[in-house]
């Protein structure tokens, strides 16, 4: 009997004892994590044919029947693409860690936590049951907390604390929503609940929608609740920053799409409040995009720049979400999640490499590094240009689709003209901070200072992600097809 999704979920857990027993040498531990992630990818790939032909692939196991929660594992185009990019990122981050973390202590524990993190990260994307979803959602927190705290820089535990509290606070708000859905429908499957909710009182649903969206928005680090992000991203070790920015905050966006919009929103869509929610969401999106971009323009810490840029990009995603249920908007948003994961992950790895090679964080102290670290410079260029939305690199196409959806929406609802226009303007700011980063770090006359050699494994993982970035940028068709195969709206 084949149960690819169950294996996908459990494989990292199964690998735990191996990591513990064999992982005295950190490289071995990292290798086990890598191999298990690759196997995970293989398992996921097994579902792809079914997903492409039937739109989804479902497995269900008994878990907590009393709470309407079987262990339903589900992938469709959206979740599959998210899960795949997550695993790719995890693999790169692990390979990167092998060299990046080698000076650190207790690495076996690090990789154990990494494996735990894999369960949470992948699990969030491959389930349709809200309870399972919530489990994995919170499961991400614990390993991340300890990794940031233990292996981070400077006041890492403080940053980790902030991260934990903020996202946990968001999560309990989500929990309220899940409780309310269970109360209303007695079922926690996203898709079943969606049909069952159609007969529920809309005013209550609106509250549920708010609770969900608020909770997920904290994870996404939308502007008024973004305070945890710069610290957490900046203090975490680079591979984890890559995962944080690449996957964890994106899980928030994915969840808004899946839960807030996919489950609750259709039942209140036709009400006045429904469109008002969209307006509010798009406004927050615009604000975040500008806020993140402008703060990134003023920041001098290399990792915090990238962190702020994540806030900005979550603004794009939020704006894309507000176009629900437009196909261009949804597909563009999901594609942007995938692309942003690839490029921001890479950019964080690059920042990590720069920090590792030079021992500096402040970009004003750097300069002229392009000739001394060509691989890092090329990878940074690729990821930066992707972040700035330059064509042929990943993020361009998704931003294009989002804007496309924005104008589609505008032609139906005049409100969206302004936000869409502003979002387009925000790309100029993105370009500005990205160029500033690149300029300060890599260009002009080199400053004195020692630059160590880039370890091969770091280079490999960076080049791999660079390749992914370019591939996604040049030929996004298959991914778009995959995402589009999901039932939308």
């Amino acid at each position, binding site marked *: 009997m084949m149960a690819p999704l169950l294996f996908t979920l459990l494989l990292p857990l199964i690998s735990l004892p191996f990591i513990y027993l064999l992982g005295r040498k950190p490289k071995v531990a990292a290798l086990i994590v890598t191999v298990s992630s690759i196997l995970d990818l293989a398992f996921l790939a097994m579902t792809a044919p079914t997903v492409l032909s039937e739109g989804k692939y479902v497995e269900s196991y008994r878990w907590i029947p009393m709470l309407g929660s079987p262990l339903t594992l589900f992938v469709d185009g959206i979740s599959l693409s998210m899960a795949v990019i997550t695993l790719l990122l995890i693999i790169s981050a692990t390979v990167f860690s092998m060299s990046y973390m080698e000076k650190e202590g207790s690495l076996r524990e690090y990789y154990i936590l990494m494996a735990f993190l894999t369960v949470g990260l992948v699990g969030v994307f491959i389930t349709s049951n809200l309870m399972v979803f919530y*489990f994995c959602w919170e499961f991400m927190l614990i390993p991340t907390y300890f990794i940031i705290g233990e292996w981070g820089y400077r006041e890492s535990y403080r940053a980790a604390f902030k991260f934990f509290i903020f996202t946990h606070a968001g999560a309990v708000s989500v929990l309220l929503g899940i409780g309310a859905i269970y*109360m209303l429908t007695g079922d926690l499957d996203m898709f079943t609940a969606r049909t069952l909710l159609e007969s529920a009182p809309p005013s209550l649903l609106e509250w549920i929608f708010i609770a969900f969206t608020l909770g997920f928005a904290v994870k996404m680090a939308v502007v008024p609740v973004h305070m945890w992000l710069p610290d957490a991203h900046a203090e975490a070790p680079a591979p984890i920053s890559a995962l944080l920015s690449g996957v964890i905050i994106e899980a928030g966006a994915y969840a808004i799409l899946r839960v807030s919009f996919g489950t609750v929103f259709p039942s209140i869509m036709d009400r006045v409040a429904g469109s008002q929610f969209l307006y509010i969401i798009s406004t927050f999106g615009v604000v975040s995009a500008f806020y993140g971009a402008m703060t990134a323009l003023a920041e001098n810490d290399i990792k915090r720049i990238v962190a702020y840029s994540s806030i900005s990009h979550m603004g794009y995603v939020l704006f894309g979400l507000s176009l629900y249920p437009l196909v261009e908007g949804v597909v563009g948003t999901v594609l942007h999640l995938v692309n942003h994961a690839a490029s921001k992950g890479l950019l964080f790895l690059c920042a990590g490499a720069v920090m590792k090679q030079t021992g500096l964080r402040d970009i004003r102290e750097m300069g002229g590094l392009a000739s001394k670290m060509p691989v890092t410079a090329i990878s940074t260029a690729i990821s930066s240009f992707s972040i700035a939305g330059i064509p042929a690199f990943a993020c361009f196409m998704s931003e294009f689709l989002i804007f496309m959806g924005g104008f589609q929406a505008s032609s139906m609802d005049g409100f969206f003209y302004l936000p869409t226009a502003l979002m387009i303007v925000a790309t100029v700011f993105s370009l500005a901070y990205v160029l500033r980063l690149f300029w300060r770090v890599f260009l002009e006359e080199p400053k004195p200072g020692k630059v160590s050699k880039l370890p091969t494994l770091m280079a490999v993982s960076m080049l791999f992600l660079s390749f992914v970035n370019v591939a996604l940028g040049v030929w996004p068709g298959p991914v778009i097809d995959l995402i589009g195969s999901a039932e939308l709206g």
Partner: protein
Amino acid sequence: MIGLLDVLLPTVILTVSAMLTLPILTVIRRRNSHHRALAVLWIVVPFSAAALWIIHLSLEYYGSMGSQPFVFVSFAPGEEAHLSSSFLVDAVSIYMVIVYLLMGFASCLYGILYIGFEEKPSERYFALTFMVVGSVMAATLSGDLLTLFIFWEASAAGSCFLIAYRKRADSIEASIKYLVMIVIASGFIVYGLSIIYGLVGSLNFWVVRDALITAPDKRLLLAAFLFVAAGYAIETAVVPFHMWLPDAYTAAPPSSAAFLSAIVDQASYYVFMRVLVYILTPPEVLNWPVALAVFSALTMTVGNLFALAQRDVRRMVAYVCVADIGYNLVAITSVKPLGVMGNLFFFFVGGMTTALAFMAVGIVNRLGLKTLEDFAGVGRKFPLTSIALVVAALSFSGVPPFAGFIAKYLVFTAAIEAGMAWLAVVGVLNSVLQSAYLLRLIHYMYARPAGRRVRGGEPRNLLIPVYIMVVAIIVLGMYPAFALDLINPAALQLSLLLS
């Protein structure tokens, strides 16, 4: 057919072994070798005997459940049953008894390893733990208010000795305060019972329940409720009746605190729930949920806020216990099957979690490390203990995959279902607050450098009961169906009762 013996035998076994403990442990102590193993064996024997009998009881009960979910067992047979002191076997009580046995075993094990039976009066300590478990079981299985009262007070008397075990000034004072509060509570309860008795003419659960639903005099009913609820609120330590609890749990030896929080605390919640939900009037007759919801919100908030202000870690955990009462009350006031499910799960999980926290803190306390500052750097020196404490903290905060999450989820969902979304919101906010200060503890443990006094190794054998709890919490968190399968009939039973 379940007989009186079936119901009482576990209690009897435990009480008799309590008596036997005194000579047996004395004998064991005289031996030169293997005495610790023998002592542990002595813990295992009565508990397994009691467990066997409980299994028998539950098999018998579930075998005949189809006809009647509530099985009354009385001293006097036949028609007169309701006049006599009686016992009641149902899914809820069976579940609770199993829970007591499991947790009682783990905490007794911890006790015998922690207290060290080489110590002189330790046989009394173990005898009392057996007795308390026994009487709590009997209280749980009791079928009328008086039986409940008597066994309950018996367990209180026993626990008072557990608190005062070390005979230090603070523990003596705390146990006096505890006992005085218990006596006041019992005064209140008797007061309330007297009114109920005056109204109904019986104290049998069933008779009382049926009669009170159609009670003629609302004012007397209210008075009865007031006194009974206040009495049990004191014993449960609902805010503002809670003040004895932090003192008692801080002054008692950690093993006692773990034991009390695992068994007596949970039993008191259970009794509170049993009396309110099962026996006293349903909300349609006397609208008590709102009033208790206020108390529940108060308890959560005060418990958490006070815990936040503590520097002494054990006292902080004690206040977490207070906050837990608030969460339990949320479910109780919902009067929904889901709430009962949440309650029953919470009794188990909350008990384990608090016990685990006290146990882990106790291990560190042995070095004289008490305050948050003392705990700095403990995470690196005592990794296993710290992981256990982290698990407890995260379970308290309601973070999956730890069992505390499922409990909290059930509780909050029940509140939403009962139309008290505000209470759920308060609960959720409190949860965040809770995670904040527990995280602060973790922060101290891991982020700060260790002080000079943090030294030595971890006591390996003490970690055995600790890790039993850890595993249970994780397993129940990942796959709660283990417990929920047992709980489900109880919840169904309640819906039967409420309809």
